[in-house]
C-alpha cells in the first residue's frame, strides 16, 4: 500500500536547519490500522503529510501500491490523492460556507465520470455511515465538534479510498465524542477494509489500533503490534 524508504525531511531557513524526519522506513499494508505516537514536534504530522502526498520529503522514496511517486507532477499527485487517499484533520477543515452534504461531496467534484446524482447518493450513504443522515442541510457552524469530525470522516470515505490518514482526529474532542469517532474509524477499518494511519497523543486510542509506531526527534523508535487490538470488541 504505502511504503516509505529512507525518508528525510529537513526544514531550512536562512539560519536554522531543522530535521523533522530522519531515515524513516515504513510499510503500511492494505487493511491495517496503524497509530503513530510521540511527543509534540517529533515529526508525526510531517510523516502523515508525506504519506498523504501533501508534502515532499527532502530525501527518500514514497511508494504507493509499489510505484515510486517522487517524479509525479501536480496533476498525477492530485489524481492519486483523490482516488486512493482520504484525510481527517484535528481541526476538521470543513468549509463553513457549504452545507454538510456539499462538504461531504467535495472529493467527488474532482473525480471524473461520477454524476451529480451518484455523488449525492454516495454522500448520503457516507453520512449514514457516520450517523449524520439527519444533518445533511446543516452548516458546520451549527454542529458540535464530534458531529463536525463525523462529517469530516464521511468526506474522507465518500471516495472509497484505500487509506485514510487521520491527524489527531480526536484531539479536539472530549472523551465520549473521541470514543465515538474512534469506533467509526475502527468500523471502517474492520468492515470496509480501509487502511488507516492515525496520529494521536492518546495512548488509549492508540492501543485500540492494530499497530503502534512511536517517534522521537524525527526518528522511529518502536514499531509493534498492540496487544489490546481486538476485533470482537467493536
Amino acid at each position, binding site marked *: 500500500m504505502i511504503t516509505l524508504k529512507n525518508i528525510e525531511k529537513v526544514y531550512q531557513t536562512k539560519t536554522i536547519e531543522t530535521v523533522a524526519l530522519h531515515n524513516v522506513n515504513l510499510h503500511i499494508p492494505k487493511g491495517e490500522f496503524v497509530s503513530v505516537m510521540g511527543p509534540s514536534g517529533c515529526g508525526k504530522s510531517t510523516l502523515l*503529510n508525506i504519506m*498523504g502526498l*501533501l*508534502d515532499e520529503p527532502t530525501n527518500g522514496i514514497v511508494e504507493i501500491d509499489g510505484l515510486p511517486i517522487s517524479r509525479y507532477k*501536480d*496533476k498525477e499527485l*492530485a*489524481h492519486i*490523492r*483523490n*482516488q486512493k*487517499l*482520504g*484525510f481527517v*484533520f484535528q481541526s476538521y*477543515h470543513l*468549509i463553513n*460556507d*457549504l452545507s454538510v452534504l*456539499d462538504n461531504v*461531496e*467535495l*472529493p467527488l*467534484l*474532482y*473525480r471524473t465520470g461520477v454524476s*451529480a446524482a451518484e455523488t449525492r447518493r454516495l454522500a448520503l450513504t457516507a453520512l449514514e455511515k457516520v450517523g449524520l443522515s439527519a444533518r445533511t442541510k446543516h452548516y458546520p457552524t451549527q454542529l458540535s465538534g464530534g458531529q463536525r469530525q463525523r462529517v469530516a470522516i464521511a*468526506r474522507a470515505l465518500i*471516495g472509497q479510498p484505500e487509506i485514510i490518514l487521520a491527524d489527531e482526529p480526536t484531539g479536539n474532542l472530549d472523551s465520549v465524542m473521541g470514543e465515538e469517532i474512534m469506533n467509526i474509524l475502527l468500523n471502517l477499518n474492520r468492515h470496509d477494509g480501509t487502511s488507516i494511519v492515525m496520529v494521536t497523543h492518546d495512548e488509549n486510542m492508540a492501543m485500540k489500533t492494530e499497530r503502534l509506531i512511536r517517534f522521537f526527534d524525527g526518528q522511529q523508535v518502536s514499531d509493534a503490534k498492540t496487544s489490546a487490538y481486538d476485533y470482537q470488541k467493536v
Partner: protein
Amino acid sequence: MLKNYLKIAWKVLLRRKFFTFISLFGISFTLMVLMVATSLMDHTFGPQMPERETDELLFVSMMREEHSEGYSSSGPASYYFLDRNVRTLQTPEQVSINSMFFQVNSYINNRKLALDIKYTDREFWDILDFEFLEGGAFGQQEVAGASRVAIINETTRNKYFGEGKAVGKTIEVDQVKYKVVGVVKDVPVLRLYSYADVWVPITLKSQDFNKPGYRGLYFATIKAQNPADIPNIKAEYAAMLHEIERQHPVKGTKLSSFPDTTLEGFARTLLGGGKKSGMGFLYVILAGLAFLFMLLPTINLVSINISRIMERSSEIGLRKAFGATSSNIIGQFIVENIFLTLLGGILGFALSAAVLKLINDSGVIVYANLGLNLRVFAWGLLLSLIFGLISGVYPAYRMSRLKAVEALKGGSK
C-alpha cells in the same frame, strides 16, 4: 463543480460585505464609465437612425487646398466641386450633396426659436434612413423646382405647432415660409452629416451652385452598393482628385479630400495627416485609455482578491488534499471572480442606464438618445469578462502554487 463554485462564491460575497461593496463599486463604476463611453461612441459612429448602414456609407466633409506658395485652406467642399466630380463617380450606388447646417431663427408668438437648417437634394432622403412620423420626403420635382417645402424634426414640430399634426401647415424660418411635407424623429447633433431641425431643398441655395473653387459649405453622402465596394469608391475618388490636381491651373497645388466613414472622418480631423486617416492611432489611443482606466480598479481588485483568497488558504489546502489540481483551483477562483464581475456588470448596467437617462434628459447633447442597446450590452458583457479574468487570474495563480500542506496551515508562502 460549477454549482459548488457558485455556491461558495455567493457565500463569500455575503460573508465579506465590505470587501464585496468595494469590489462591486469599483467594477460597476468602471464599467459604467466604459459603457457610457461605448454608448456615446455607438451613438456617434455606430449604425443608428438615419445612418443605419454604416458599412455602406461614406461622407466627404473636408477639402484641403495647399498652394505651392505655402498657404493652405481647409473646410467643407464646394457644391461646384462635388456636383461635377463626386456626383459623377461610377462606383457608388448613389451620391447626395447636402449643405452643412446653419443656425437660423424662427418666431412663435414673439418667442425666438433657434433652429438648424440644412439644404439637401432628393438623394439624401433615399440614402439615409430617417424615421418619418408624418408625411414623407420632398421629391425630385420639388427639388428641381426649388419649392419652399420643409421636413422638420419632432421637437421643432412640438415647439412650433404643439402636439398636433404639422404636415400641410406652414413654418416660417429665417423670414421664409415653407410648407411642411414631413416630420422625422429627432437626429442627434453628433450625427453631423444628417442632423438638422429643418431640411429644405438644396436648390433654394442655387446661388452657390456655380461658384467655382474647391472649398465651400457642402458635404457629399455616398452610398455603396455593398460594403465590398467601399475600397473601390475610395480608389476612384483618389484617382479623380489626382486628375484634378494634375489639371490644376496653378502648378504644385495639392488637394486633400477623402470619402470617409464617420469614424474615419473623426479620426482624420483629430489625428490624421496627409493620406493617413489616423484610424490606427485612434484605436491605439482608445484602447490605451480603456486600458489605463481599467488598470487601476483591476490592480485594486487584484489586491482585494489576494487578501480575500489568502483567508481561504485552508480551503485551498483542503481541496488540494482531496484531489484538486492547481488548474482546478485557478478555475474555481476565476469562476468566482467572473461571477463577482458579472454581478458588478449588472450593477454597472443599471448605473449606466441611469447616467444615460440623465445625459438624455439634460440636453447636453442635442437630441441625444443614448441607450443600452444590444451592441453596448455585448461590449459591457465582454468588458466585464475581461475585467473578471484579468483581476482573477493572478491571485488564483498565486494561490494555486501554494503547497497543500502550507495552505492547510494558513498559507505562509
